[in-house]
């Protein structure tokens, strides 16, 4: 699955640590999601979407 997390984070000038803190997850998790090594669960995907005030489909797309 592809995602726009890195771009969205950069637009807000957030570090991976900043995003991790806002989502209450580890920096390693943010890095794994951004690099496509890990696809988040649906609850986490909803939290990410809510944080960026977007829909899940606007952030995550099929390969």
């Amino acid at each position, binding site marked *: 699955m592809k995602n726009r997390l890195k771009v969205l984070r950069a637009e807000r000038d957030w*570090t*991976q*640590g*900043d995003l*991790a*803190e806002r989502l*209450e*997850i*580890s*920096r*390693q*998790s943010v*890095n*794994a*999601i951004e*690099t496509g*090594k*890990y696809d*988040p*669960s649906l609850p*986490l995907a909803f939290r990410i979407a809510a944080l960026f005030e977007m829909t899940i489909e606007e952030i995550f797309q099929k390969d």
Partner: protein
Amino acid sequence: MTGEEMDRPSVSAHKKAALGWAGGFVVAMFGTPFIVSAIAMPPGWKQFLMLVPMLLLIPMLRASYAAQPGGMGAPTRRYLIRLFTSMGIYMVSLLTAVYLLKHHLVEGWAMWPLAILPGLSIVGAFYAVGMLIIEQKDEYMRMLLVRQTLVASALALAAATVWGFLENFGLVAHVDAFYWAIVWFFGLGVGAAFNRLTLGTWGGC
């Protein structure tokens, strides 16, 4: 200055501390047996001196977890408390049992609790790992832990099974069953290396 940059000095300090404690652990591991064999001391003291290297593991692991970005979370702290409590009971119960048996101070039914307690304390370490998986709120870190334990279980079960057949055929020496628990803990390390190689992160236990 970004949040990551602000974190750097303390993370670096924890890394240095972890390395220092690791160095102390290695020196104690090799030095304590030498000191114990070289110096005459009262009965029982030698066994308890051998605990010193194990005690150094506590600050070493604390520093290494604190060195991770974000520091040591509550589940990890509870995991370490459970793990070191189990290991402490294991060491004390085993050394007590060895001392009592060596000096013929116990026999009959009293052998049962002496024999069971070290085994149960190792079960406590399994419990600590299991509870870490349950209590870990970060789903990615939890997945890394699960992968670690799967690798460890596969390694220990495979090794025990193959060794069992080799032993039955009289090709290798007998190995006491509790050693497979040690293989399992070694497997956690292999699992962490597997995580690092495939996902770029070690994992948590």
